[in-house]
């Protein structure tokens, strides 16, 4: 089909004639009903061969215009082809054979009713949209209590209410606070740091911290170093910003264990 269309375009300027009006059809039945009306034929006695050809011509036109043709249109096309073949084939006995078009006619009649109803709703919709009702400010309505008719309560609203109730419950009953066990204590780190400073006389703090991957341990170590410096047990030295910090023994000699037992180090 593609080749065919490019040929006509390249050859003369004879483009395939498109039907002038190609309204958007809301489905294959809509298109079929449109054709029946355009041909001014009785819906219960559709000339299936003509209508089938016109239906296919319209589909081709839609393809020409690059309109997306949904699968349902193609399904209907094949049904029409089937009906066309049934109509063209001679039947053995004319008597007692059900009209192959019967189901199609029934569906078309039903769809026509729907279209008429839709037209009525459309008329209402057009007028009713021009009406303005009371608009309540959120502050006026107070706590959000939606007025609901019992018959308008459906599964979705029930599900929403359930989720809301769960949320309210979660807010009213927060999960118990989890207290993580204390893995490092300042006292323990003070002991360790002070011992090493006394032993090594000069302890590079930054290098020491770099070796520890645990944030909690790093924080504890820094606090311990600050505490020792405050008590005068060690002196911290840094040449310039971001340079290594050296810890050296301070002017006072501390008995860390005793201090900790008195609670001085931890408290103040």
């Amino acid at each position, binding site marked *: 089909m593609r080749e065919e269309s490019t040929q006509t375009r390249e050859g003369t300027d004879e483009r395939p004639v498109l039907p002038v009006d190609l309204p*958007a059809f*809301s*489905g*294959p*039945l*809509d298109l079929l009903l449109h054709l*029946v*009306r355009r041909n*001014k034929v*009785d*819906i219960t006695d559709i000339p299936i061969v003509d209508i089938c050809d016109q239906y296919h011509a319209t589909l081709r036109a839609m393809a020409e215009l690059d309109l997306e043709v*949904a699968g*349902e249109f193609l399904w*209907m096309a094949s049904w029409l082809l089937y009906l066309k073949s049934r109509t063209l084939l001679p039947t053995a006995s004319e008597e007692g054979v059900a009209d192959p078009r019967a189901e199609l006619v029934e*569906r078309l009649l*039903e*769809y*026509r*009713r*729907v*279209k*008429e*109803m*839709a*037209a*009525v*709703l*459309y008329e*209402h*919709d*057009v*007028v*009713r*949209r*021009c*009406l*303005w*009702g*009371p*608009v*309540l400010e959120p502050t*006026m309505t107070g706590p959000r209590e939606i*007025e609901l*008719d019992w*018959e*308008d309560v*459906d*599964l*979705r609203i029930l599900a929403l209410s359930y989720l809301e109730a769960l949320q309210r419950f979660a807010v009213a009953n927060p999960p118990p606070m989890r207290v993580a066990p204390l893995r490092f204590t300042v006292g323990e780190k003070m002991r360790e740091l002070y011992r090493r400073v006394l032993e090594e006389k000069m302890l590079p703090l930054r290098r020491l911290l770099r070796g520890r991957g645990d944030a909690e341990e790093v924080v504890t170590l820094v606090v311990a170093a600050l505490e020792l410096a405050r008590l005068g047990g060690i002196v911290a030295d840094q040449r310039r910003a971001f340079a290594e910090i050296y810890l050296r023994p301070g002017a006072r000699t501390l008995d860390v264990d005793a201090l900790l037992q008195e609670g001085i180090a931890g408290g103040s």
Partner: protein
Amino acid sequence: MDHDTLSAVVEGVLLTSRAPVTAAAVAEAIAEESVTGEHVEHVLSELSELWSGAGRGLHLERVAGGWRVVTPPQIDPYLQAFHGLKARQRLSQAALETLAIVAHRQPVTLPEVNFIRGTNSAAVMRTLFDRGLVRLAGRKAVVGKPFLYRTTKDFLVHFGLDRIEDLPEPESLVQEDSTLAE
């Protein structure tokens, strides 16, 4: 409660209610033995008459089993301009067809709607659902247990119907000439 106060209360209730107001609900809220539903109904019809005249920007309509205050349609362009409303979204042809099927055949399942329309209506149904025009009404006891759909009270309000039975029968709409001509 004297008549003037009752009249004022009813007017106030109408102006502050989004949903249609029933006389019984107003009487219940007032909770006085001297005020019955009939009294309120009487006041409502008085108001309806008062507002029905020309030169009024308010109008009382009977819809979805109650009363609702709305503006008359002819002043809509000015209201739109005043509130800076550019364009209104209309319901699409597919949406109207789907609504028509639900309204007329409810409760109805999506596969049934698809069959009648000859096309998949899932997205359309979803839109109607989100707009509060249709609601779920359980499941049908057939294979797959599809959801059943019904129209909502908002549907009645939007289309100005007192009851769903006020919709015309489709048979009465179809005239043979209209299909042959066109």
